């Protein structure tokens, strides 16, 4: 890497008041033609471009982004990373990502602030207890670390949780994945962008795709706000807007786009050193390094691209948070926002070829795509470069909705959708 970030470069640049740092990525004008174009400059899209260049030696590629990189769901999620999924296919996919996370800062020479602070999932009724125990066993059979905790152990691991048997939904136990945790979401996009740019990938921001040019059953290029760009391989990683791009190509996807909200509190001193999620009451909370509580709410149940959700969803989440953590009762919330998530009928993603030659989709991550960013990029790059899925994403093809071989993670994935 020509401008390696290190303690020495930090000291060197301190002498010039940090005014001479080189740009982490260029701002190129689009070329007339690329070997592959990635639509969507979020974490998944940038990771795809990075691995296409790094592992598959495709250097003449571009990422087009309608806004700025990492400005969509990459910058709007609650940064939780875990791999404790029930089904074998999901476990393989998400643990592949988690393993890459473990070495990502070193690989990218960019601190993504990956923190393995553990993720705890709570059980509030007998069915939860049975489901979480089953999932713990399934995880361990798949080589994923997981332990089941009883109520006292939950209290010991996170002392501020109200474990009184008198609350509306008492805590009966929980699971813990210690390798799970959080990362800095913006840094993931920036780190991958810098790495991809270094290898010659063009990252083109403020360039909205307006149409997909097809010739029969294969793609020929994209119409954008910066003109026509020719290519015969298009990888779409457009999250909530996947269906919009699909419609341009005359495809229909099994997706519904819905608002998902999150909110953060004012910053306070360290109070919660892990991530706690509750499926049954739909509350999850962690604390950022700045001290803000990061709280995830649920999705609205109607289709919308408005990037704002309903107030009653936030209210429901905060009710649950306050019952579980009475200590937060006087906390003030600082910011609230929404992102648009594309949800598949089986709540599992699609990383797949399509019926149109040269058109690939990586979508349907729904409410939980951030955790998979590195793995998703790696496997999607493999799929695009070889025109064949990797064995880890073979189950996540689009044809599963025709064959019926669904990866049904609804509810089983440790969090409600």
């Amino acid at each position, binding site marked *: 890497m020509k401008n390696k970030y290190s303690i020495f470069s930090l000291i060197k640049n301190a002498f010039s008041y940090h005014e001479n740092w080189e740009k982490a990525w260029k701002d190129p004008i689009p070329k007339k033609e690329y070997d592959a174009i990635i639509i969507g400059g979020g974490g998944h899209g940038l990771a795809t471009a990075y691995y296409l260049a790094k592992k598959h030696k495709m250097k003449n590629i571009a990422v087009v982004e309608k806004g700025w990189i990492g400005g969509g769901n990459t910058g709007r999620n609650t940064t939780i990373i875990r791999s404790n999924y029930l089904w074998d296919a999901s476990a393989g996919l998400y643990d592949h990502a988690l393993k890459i996370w473990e070495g990502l800062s070193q690989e990218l020479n960019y601190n993504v602030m990956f923190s393995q602070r553990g993720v705890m999932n709570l059980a509030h009724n007998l069915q939860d207890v049975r489901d979480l125990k089953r999932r713990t066993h399934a995880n361990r059979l798949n080589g994923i670390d997981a332990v089941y905790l009883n109520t006292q152990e939950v209290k010991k691991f996170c002392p501020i949780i109200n474990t009184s048997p008198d609350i509306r939904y008492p805590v009966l136990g929980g699971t813990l994945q210690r390798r799970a945790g959080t990362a800095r979401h913006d840094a993931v996009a920036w780190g991958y962008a810098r790495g991809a740019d270094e290898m010659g990938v063009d990252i083109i921001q403020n360039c909205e795709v307006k149409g997909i040019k097809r010739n029969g059953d294969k793609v020929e290029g994209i119409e954008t706000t910066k003109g026509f760009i020719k290519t015969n391989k298009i990888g779409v990683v457009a999250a909530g*807007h996947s*269906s*919009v791009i699909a*419609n341009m190509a005359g495809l*229909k*996807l*099994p*997706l*519904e*786009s819905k608002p998902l909200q999150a909110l953060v509190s004012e910053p306070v001193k360290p109070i919660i050193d892990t991530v706690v999620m509750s499926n049954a009451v739909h509350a999850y909370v962690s604390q950022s390094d700045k001290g803000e509580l990061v709280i995830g709410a649920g999705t609205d*149940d*109607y*289709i*919308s*691209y*408005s990037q704002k959700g*309903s*107030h*009653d969803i936030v209210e429901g989440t905060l009710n649950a948070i306050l019952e579980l953590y009475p200590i937060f009762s006087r906390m003030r919330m600082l910011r609230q926002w929404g992102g648009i998530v*594309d949800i598949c*009928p089986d709540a599992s993603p699609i990383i797949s070829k399509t019926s149109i030659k040269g058109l690939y989709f990586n979508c349907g991550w729904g409410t939980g795509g951030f955790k998979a960013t590195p793995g998703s990029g790696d496997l999607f790059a493999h799929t695009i470069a070889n025109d064949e899925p990797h064995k880890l994403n073979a189950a996540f093809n689009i044809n599963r*909705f*025709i*064959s*019926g071989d669904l990866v049904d993670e609804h509810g089983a994935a440790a969090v409600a959708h």
Partner: protein
Amino acid sequence: MFIIHCPFCGEREQSEFKSGGEAHIVRPRQPTELSDDEWAEYLFMRKNIKGIQFERWNHAHGCRKWFNMVRDTSNDEIKAVYKMGEKPPIK
């Protein structure tokens, strides 16, 4: 959050309603003759439109009746509400 004009009850908060997704998807007339592709199209594939969308809603915490709505999904503006079986007032 927005206000929905239920054709039976009048104006109520959106939180009283349940969205039923895309409207006017015709139920297969002869299910036994459908191919897997056609089943997938009927069950799973959706237009998921950004813009003017025709959709079904149920007044779940009210009269519990189903009705149709035309809504702009890019800003949640409701263009029209009409009863089941009626023709959409907007094309």
